[in-house]
């Protein structure tokens, strides 16, 4: 699937919020504004001798309009990092920002609204409510906010993801790849500042994985969408502009313009 030209940003009236993040059109990665960042992020679980340090003084930023992959072995803290950055989990110490908003300063309700209006999510599995159709799942965040989605934008995303024929189906009637593409459509339809994806291809075969990643790549290139993907798959990481490697809760390496081989090599080095 090739990246089709997606509706120009200027057409959309849903963009007011994103204007702040100052991303140029045309998918340039050169802009240095940070869409999300953490400073001195530490997260520990348990108390006393049973304390587990999941994140150990991590400072990292995600550039607007860039496709970043977070990699690391199991238990390296990559998922915890993502949870803390999105307000799903809270840091033990340190700060997390979305744009210039300090997550620690928000109430549960404000965090919820932030997730709804400014972030998009794709999980590894169980992304969709089983009782709603694909279309209803896609518009769910907008429905929750009491807004209507921009129909033109909705149709662009749906046709790009090849979901037109599937809109009235329930998740149980969709293939794994279709379910994940529906989740991606949901994450994109409200044009969030950042899309976070946690192992989005973890349950997919290689063909469906490639399709999904090419699509994520294209929204970054064509729209300047900021995308952060947590993965352990080097092939997936190769689609990113930059790869951040985590080991034992700390950032140990960064790799710009990665390829599958350079990622593999880095992993091998870090693992030994």
């Amino acid at each position, binding site marked *: 699937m090739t990246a089709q030209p997606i509706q120009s940003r200027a057409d959309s009236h849903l963009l007011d919020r994103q204007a702040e993040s100052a991303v140029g059109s045309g998918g340039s990665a050169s802009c240095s504004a940070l869409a999300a960042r953490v400073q001195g992020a530490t997260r520990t679980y348990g108390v006393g001798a049973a304390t587990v340090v999941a994140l150990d003084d991590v400072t990292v930023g995600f550039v607007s309009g860039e496709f970043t992959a977070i990699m690391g072995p199991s238990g390296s803290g990559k*998922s915890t990092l993502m*949870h803390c950055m999105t307000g*799903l*989990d809270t840091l033990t110490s340190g700060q997390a920002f979305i744009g210039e908003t300090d997550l620690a300063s928000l109430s*549960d*309700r404000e965090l*919820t*609204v932030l*997730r*709804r*209006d400014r972030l998009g*999510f794709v*999980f590894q*599995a*169980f*992304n969709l*409510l*089983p*009782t*709603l159709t694909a279309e*209803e799942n896609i518009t*769910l*965040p907008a*429905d*929750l*906010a009491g807004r209507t989605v921009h129909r033109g934008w909705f149709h662009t995303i749906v046709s790009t993801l090849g979901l037109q024929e599937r809109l009235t189906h329930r998740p149980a009637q969709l293939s794994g790849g279709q379910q994940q593409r529906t989740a991606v459509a*949901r994450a994109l339809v409200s044009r969030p500042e950042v899309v976070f994806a*946690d192992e989005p291809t973890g349950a997919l075969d290689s063909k469906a994985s490639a399709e999904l990643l090419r699509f994520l790549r294209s929204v970054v290139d064509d729209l300047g969408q900021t995308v952060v993907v947590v993965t352990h798959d080097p092939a997936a990481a190769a689609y990113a502009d930059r790869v951040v490697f985590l080991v034992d809760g700390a950032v140990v390496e960064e790799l710009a313009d990665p390829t599958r081989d350079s990622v593999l090599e880095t992993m091998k080095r870090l693992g030994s």
Partner: protein
Amino acid sequence: MLRVSLRNVLANKLRLVLTIAAVTVGVAFVSGTFVLSDTMTRAFDQLYSGLTAGTDVVVRGQSAYSTDVTTQEQPPPLDEDLVEVVAQVPGVAAAQGGVTGFALILDKDGVPIQPGGAPTLGASVGGDDQLAGGFTFREGQAPAGLGEIAIDAGSAAEAGYQVGDTVDVVLQDSRSSFTLVGIVGFGDTDSLAGATLAGFDLPTAQQLLGKVGLVDEIEVRADDGVTAQALRADVGAVLPTGAEALTGQQVADEGSAAVRDAMSVFSQVLLVFAGVSVLVGSFVIWNTFSVLVAQRRREVALLRAVGATRRQVLTGIMVEAGVIGLVSAGVGLGTGVGLAVGIRSLLKLIGIEVPATSTTIEPRTIVAALLVGVVITMAAALVPAWAASRVAPMEALRDVVPTAGDIRPARQIAGWVLLAAGLAGLVGCALAGGQLAWTGVATLTAFAGLVTAGPSLARGTARLADHGRRGNGWRMAARNIARSSRRSAATALALTIGLAVVCAVAVTASSMKASVADSVTGGNRSDFALRPAGAGSGVSPAAADLVRGLDEVDTVVELRYTGAQVGGQNATVVGVDPSGLDDVVDLGPMDGSLAAFTPGTMMLRAETAEALGARVGNPVQITFPETGVQTVTLAGTFANDTLLESNYLITLADFQDNVTSRLDGAVLLTVRDGVAPAVAERSLSQALAEYPNVTISDPAELTADAQASVDQMLGLVTALLLLAVVVAVLGIVNTLVLSVVERTRALGLMRAVGATRRQVRTLVRRESVLMSLLGAVTGIGLGTVSGIALSRALVDEGVTRLAVPSGTLAAYLAVAALVGVLAAIGPARRASRVDVLRAVTTE
């Protein structure tokens, strides 16, 4: 969010149906009760306003105090000369006197036409056409003279009488034959609220009803242009003391109000049963929503992750509950209207006849149905919904479905303390006796304890069942119960409520039966009792005179009853001839003596005398409706509960001075020494052949009759309560279905590693049986203990004995186990058909 809620409602049809059914029963009960009582009230309203339609003013004797319709006491009759006096008042177009009394119509085979509950009236009919109101001659004409009679269309239809036939009627003093000359109707209805009517012309009626020279009321029609109010004032001015004038409207309103009062008591009783069903239903709803929320934790977490606020989650589940409540309310309302028709037939079965009219659905009924359906459902769903709103969005990302948290020890301890306090209270009430209010408080406390300590009770049950061979279904079932102890407890508790009430009623009823047997056989010395058949209002004194003349019969004692007030309290006073009283009953004299019981004195039951503060020799005031306050001296007190069925005894002579009616409520008699009972009974029935409304019973038959009527009530009450038990069973099915759906993966895994379908079915069935038994044991236990306390609390109401129907209770336990097996059939089948492959691969 609304869409999510609606989709969730429709997601599982079976669950939806079961949940709705649980609420529907309660709603149907409530709305059915209202529809029934509204319909009946309206029917009576129509009847009363129809009857007084042409009458502007009614003159009648003044009662000493306002009697209520249920006692059927009549005001004192007036002198018939007053009719002429009233007729002379300016503005009176017509005035006519009327009398009412006892007359029992016999059908062609000589069998009495005896309505259950409603009176058998004899009355004067005919005269002024316009004064007749809704009362019309459908066929024939008004009776004239001694040999002619008119009867109501209802009785005519029942017996197949036509104008020209000969009709036999049992009257207060005789049995006579008449020629039927007219058939009367009351507007559209065939009878006066189920009562039978034998109509005669006024002089004949006065003679036959024992009111020569007297009238019970005078109906007055005003001249054109004279208002009823004005005429009432004018007529009132000429009346002697002891008579009063009312407008026709007032009389109609009085009748309606009396019916309304009676109906409200009746609907309150039904609403209590409805309340039990609603309570059980709310437990089922609570439980269903708790399980739903537990199952949907991941969905809720996902919703939260993509931006649903806590309030939206809470609102979403409440909307879901509201929709279920609304649908249940609608279905329940419809069912309730049907139920009202059913209850009407049921009432007819136990002998309460209800006039027919179109079904009345007041706005109040619809509001009540909606309130019960929606509010109960939403209230029961509130706690689970709140729990759902606390689900952290993080849970969407975890793979494991978290199980419900541990029970806090504080809660367990509080539960056990409450339960112990409640049970101790019940034991205390049982020992003390007479503590009705405290019995209620203790029962509720014990129940609250059961609710609170429920999960640990479920674990206890599981521990008991967790024995035997490994791989044995009981063990696995016990583990599952222990793991979901809260849910199991809530499911079982629905059954607990239903069975507790059923058992408490069963224990109380069996105690009543034992007490009834005591009172009949205990103080009895008579050999036979003559009583009115069915719900008849009395036996002609002529019957007593007939048997008094028999050679086989020794002593004959007539008992007459009237409502009166003693010490300001309504009481049933019995008039009895002191001579021979000691031959037929053993009063168990305490203070004073039976010899001192002469006209001008009375006897009281010892407890009653104590309550009134009266001692032997003291004056006691009795207020009779007809004659007002009379003072008598207390001759003595007695202890035994006897066939007299009254705590207040006066002499027959005093009774006749104060009460016009001369009907005997019952007649007790002894046979001469040496006469075989069978011989005596044969000669009694021969002598009473003319009085088919009199039944002859020996003490054993009296006991059996009394017990049969307790049984009939018990059967009715149990049937009403079983509806609540049915709701509880629906709850068990619902919980099982939900838990099977929830455990699809676990069950599939079991099948994958080698469990047979039969083993899976057995597992589900045993879980069901364990829950049923938990509910049954707690319910029957609590019900029995509070039933014992309740029986002891009613000791002053004549429940002197305590009897626990252990056979019945054991049967309930067995039925509960069976119910467990039956409830599991559907869910177990579903569990055994789980697709193994999909179960282990499904997300």
